[in-house]
């Protein structure tokens, strides 16, 4: 084949030797490969570290929101049981709903909150 004939070397040893300039030629191509690898891999590693950190922060935010929701729920239910007999419930549940709205973060913990809300109602 034409392409095979166009290869400048007859053997592996000749290819490695580079006409006596093995050190210089391979050092340059090795350095070039290293240069490319480093400047692709370092940004990629930094990206995964960054995403891990952002995910951790989001989890902490969710946890804080859930905790404060739980505290809020406890105090609200205390109020409700004490005053449910004497007063109409519509006002109270309305207030509780508002309070939940305020503390709800705009993240996926909203679904958790809704679930716990349903559990409380049933």
């Amino acid at each position, binding site marked *: 084949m034409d392409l095979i004939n166009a290869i400048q070397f007859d053997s592996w040893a000749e290819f490695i030797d580079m006409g006596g300039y093995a050190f*210089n*030629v391979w050092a340059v191509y090795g350095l070039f490969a290293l240069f490319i690898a480093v400047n692709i891999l370092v940004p990629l590693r930094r990206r995964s570290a960054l*995403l891990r950190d952002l*995910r951790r922060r989001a989890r902490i935010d969710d946890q804080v929101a859930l905790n404060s929701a739980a505290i809020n729920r406890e105090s609200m239910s205390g109020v409700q049981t004490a005053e449910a007999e004497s007063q109409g419930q519509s006002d109270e549940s309305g207030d509780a709903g508002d309070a939940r709205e305020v503390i709800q973060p705009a993240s996926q913990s909203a679904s958790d909150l809704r679930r716990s809300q349903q559990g409380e109602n049933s």
Partner: protein
Amino acid sequence: MWLWFAKLGSPKWFYELSSKWLPWLVVATVLVIGTATVWALLFLPPDYQQGYTSRILVVHVAVAGTSLAFFPLMAVAGTITLVWKMKLADMVAKNAAALGAWFSFITLATGSIWGSVSWGTWWEWSDSRLVSMLFQFFLLLGVVSLRSALEDSDKAAKACALLSIVGCINVVIIKYSVEWWNTLHQPASPVSLQTGSANGPEFWIATALMILGVYLFLSVSLILSTRNEILQRERRALWVQELVAAER
């Protein structure tokens, strides 16, 4: 018009667009650099004077030529930062400085390795091309450290923009150094049709291909680091939080 301009500089817009383009850019980079490397290492005939060391020049010329693009790129980004305060331009400029320092270093190292055979010396202080390229390396390191030295990120962006614009003078000096002063480094070889010499057609086609490949690699690396910069600086933005939640 201004709305369009503002959209162009929006980190979110850049992030979403680059998500679509990145895979194709990576494929193109691998193909072009792969082809150029195989071509250079297997098929290029030995130069009648330099032998196989001429293969070094394919990499050296491509990286060196591309390294001259950094200061103009940073100067344009810096001007946009200074005039329109576009966030994205400064993020690109910040990451370009570090990558440009890498390019300059590889240029110096590969040139040195080639010179050790062809010139019989690794370094020559009296050569203007070598010294001006070394100066570019230090200037780029200077831009990187200037940014980390200034605590006010707004001030740092402005100072770096200014230094980038001034630094363009050095690019002109590097480019014409081989013509203004005649010491060791040869001027750019004219394209020749003579085969078997280091400026023959096989050589300049392989080198042109490698230059294209190195530019593609530059854009991939710069886009990757700019996307990281966006995620970090915009981490409080709703779209970033949604993106992080979606990748969980």
